[in-house]
């Protein structure tokens, strides 16, 4: 049955892996996917239905224990969407969305990406599928978005830009062909190429005039910008490339202003991130749940860079930056983080007594730290004179306050014991677990106790 659909990739926290420039539009929960007449696959029960600009995705709900894999239907494979019939019967049923899907000769959903279908799927059969919405989702809203995405044919524009993007730095496809001469005034050995100088100048001028014009056209109103969006994105990319390379090559001409704008550019590059942010509008009631998963996926890179632990507020900034205009509030952020306990994600939220909240890797857990502390306190020097929080801080590479926190936790689990003196806190390895209560004077000639005795006695000799 899984063979019927195209396969959809899912991240470790259960979010769909989207294609290049694919954007989520709407989500519905507890949806069944059933075949109408042909029994091509057994029905998919109560999963999450996600509509994107390119595909229709069905993810099994996390509570279901059966390992059904995520399924995908490319929108180009859909040949018809039936409008919902309003009848008395439909009022008592769960809302249904019916659509027709092209099937390639080998009995699978027609996938234009695989190239298996010859032409536009002519001669292949089609199957009617029904999505039964059992949850309380906005079914009509979904249907409307379904129509919009299907008609917008985003996958087609994507294909053309995919082939065009490689040549963006060279000749822009939208704004004239003269850009090819950019940087080409000189041949590779630095001498001037012998072409008509006047010709180059004229071309240059034409190019600038056309760019000016397209800028003016695009920014007339919002609709104009929407229809020219693709072109403008490419223009932006071209300008960025030129400005960055221009300041590099003309080292003599760099002044403060140049450097400033260049820095600004690079600054911003870092913040491009989430192409399809989860929003209240698209996810509806699933908002916090999906947000939580997206955040878990997102936070891993900054977390790695920060060494396994990062301030929650820093993540709030980075996450919002990656989302562009789709800001989330601190409350939503906190809620998303607290939902992590329910999902199987590799990160966790941690609160300190001081009220500070951080996100940390689960692998960066107490157990791992305890192992390192133990190896630290069993060194001969430390057996003799113990360790202070600052020693631990320097060897573990963490802040003293943090180190003290770890040492106190280690003490409470019985790994360490403390000595309070004018020097402050010092911690020693706890020897009591090794002492046999039936024979307290027995000294075993192995174990930490023995090493301790040796270490202390050698210091006594000194």
């Amino acid at each position: 049955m899984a063979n019927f659909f195209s396969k959809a990739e899912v991240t470790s926290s259960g979010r769909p892996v989207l294609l290049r420039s694919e954007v989520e539009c709407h989500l519905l929960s507890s949806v069944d996917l059933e075949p109408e007449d042909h029994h091509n696959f057994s029905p998919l029960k109560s999963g999450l239905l996600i509509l994107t600009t390119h595909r229709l995705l069905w993810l099994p709900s996390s509570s279901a224990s059966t390992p059904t894999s995520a399924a995908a239907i490319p929108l180009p494979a859909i040949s018809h969407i039936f409008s919902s019939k309003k009848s008395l019967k439909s009022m008592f049923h769960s809302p249904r969305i019916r659509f027709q899907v092209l099937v390639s000769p080998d009995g699978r959903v027609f996938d234009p990406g695989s190239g298996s279908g010859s032409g536009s799927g002519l001669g292949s059969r089609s199957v009617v599928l029904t999505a039964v919405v059992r949850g309380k989702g906005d079914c009509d809203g979904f249907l409307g978005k379904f129509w919009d995405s299907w008609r917008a044919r985003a996958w087609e524009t994507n294909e053309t830009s995919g082939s065009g993007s490689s040549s963006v730095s060279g000749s822009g496809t939208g704004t004239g062909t003269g850009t090819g001469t950019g940087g080409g005034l000189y041949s590779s050995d630095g001498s001037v190429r012998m072409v008509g100088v006047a010709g180059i100048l004229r071309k240059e001028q034409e190019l600038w005039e056309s760019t000016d014009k397209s800028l003016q056209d695009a920014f007339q109103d919002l609709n104009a910008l929407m229809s020219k969006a693709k072109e403008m994105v490419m223009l932006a990319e071209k300008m960025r490339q030129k400005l960055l390379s221009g300041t590099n090559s003309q080292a003599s001409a760099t002044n403060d202003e140049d450097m400033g704008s260049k820095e600004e550019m690079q600054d911003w590059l870092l913040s491009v991130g989430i192409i399809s942010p989860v929003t209240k509008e698209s996810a509806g009631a699933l908002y916090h749940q999906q947000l939580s998963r997206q955040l878990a996926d997102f936070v891993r890179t900054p977390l790695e860079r920060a060494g396994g632990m990062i301030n929650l507020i820093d993540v709030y900034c980075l996450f919002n930056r990656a989302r562009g205009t789709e800001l989330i509030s601190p409350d939503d952020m906190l809620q998303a983080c607290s939902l992590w306990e329910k999902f199987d994600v590799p990160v966790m939220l941690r609160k300190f007594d001081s009220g500070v909240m951080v996100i940390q890797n689960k692998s960066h857990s107490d157990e791992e730290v305890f192992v390192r502390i133990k190896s630290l306190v069993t060194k001969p020097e430390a057996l003799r004179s113990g360790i202070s929080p600052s020693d631990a801080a320097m060897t573990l590479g963490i802040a003293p306050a943090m180190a003290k926190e770890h040492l106190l936790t280690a003490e409470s689990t019985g790994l360490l014991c403390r000595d309070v003196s004018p020097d402050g806190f010092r911690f020693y390895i706890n020897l009591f677990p090794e002492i046999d209560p039936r024979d307290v004077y027995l000294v075993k000639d192995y174990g930490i106790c023995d090493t301790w005795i040796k270490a202390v006695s050698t210091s006594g000799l000194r």
Partner: protein
Amino acid sequence: MRRRPGIGGLQTAAAARDQYRLLGENVAKLRTDLMKEQLATFRSQLEEFARKHKNDIRKNPAFRSQFHEMCAKVGVDPLASNKGFWAELLGIGDFYYELGVQIVEICLSTRPLNGGLIDLQELCKLLRQKRKHDREAVSEDDCLRAISKLKTLGSGFEVISAGKKKLVRSVPTELKKDHNEILELAQAQGYVTVDEVERRLSWTHGRAIDALDTLLDEGLAMIDDGHSDGKRRYWFPCVSSISSFGADS
């Protein structure tokens, strides 16, 4: 160009090449200037649109991602809400959230220089630079209000008063590495002075004082005011007694 023999020929060729190069440079310069001009138009238009059509942009997910891409590529901050009446009165709306994100961003980017401690005035100045197309300038009060919105996310971000100045601390004690550096510095003599910390680590006064105060609170440092030169010394008993230990571990 036809090649002519002799020194004269070579000189003419060289002169011609120079002239071409000069022309090329002029064209290149002209091109850069023109492009900057167009980039400026592009930017201001995008900013205008981000402000005016914010809600329309958000309604269309596919266009939204393209709009973000444009903004990111030419370096426009898409966060440009006006404060507006309701934000002013009740503190609702996106304005203060946007400000909060921008404030944290400034703190993040200046952190390598100041260790996560920034003067509120300085912060305001940088914020105004970021929002230079805003009609009304952002006040210190706005900053404080935006920071208070971040309280939900824990106490990792706070405003502290040092004399007349207000400082914003963005790195909580638990994650701060400044203390380690002071401890390392103290290993040589067993103590440090504020001057020494500022000079050796090239920190600002505020940063040094803040770090030393925290170490005092933590019980790691002790004050000695009794020295003849009148400078306060911060002793670190924990490092001085076992200075050999820290080195070999």
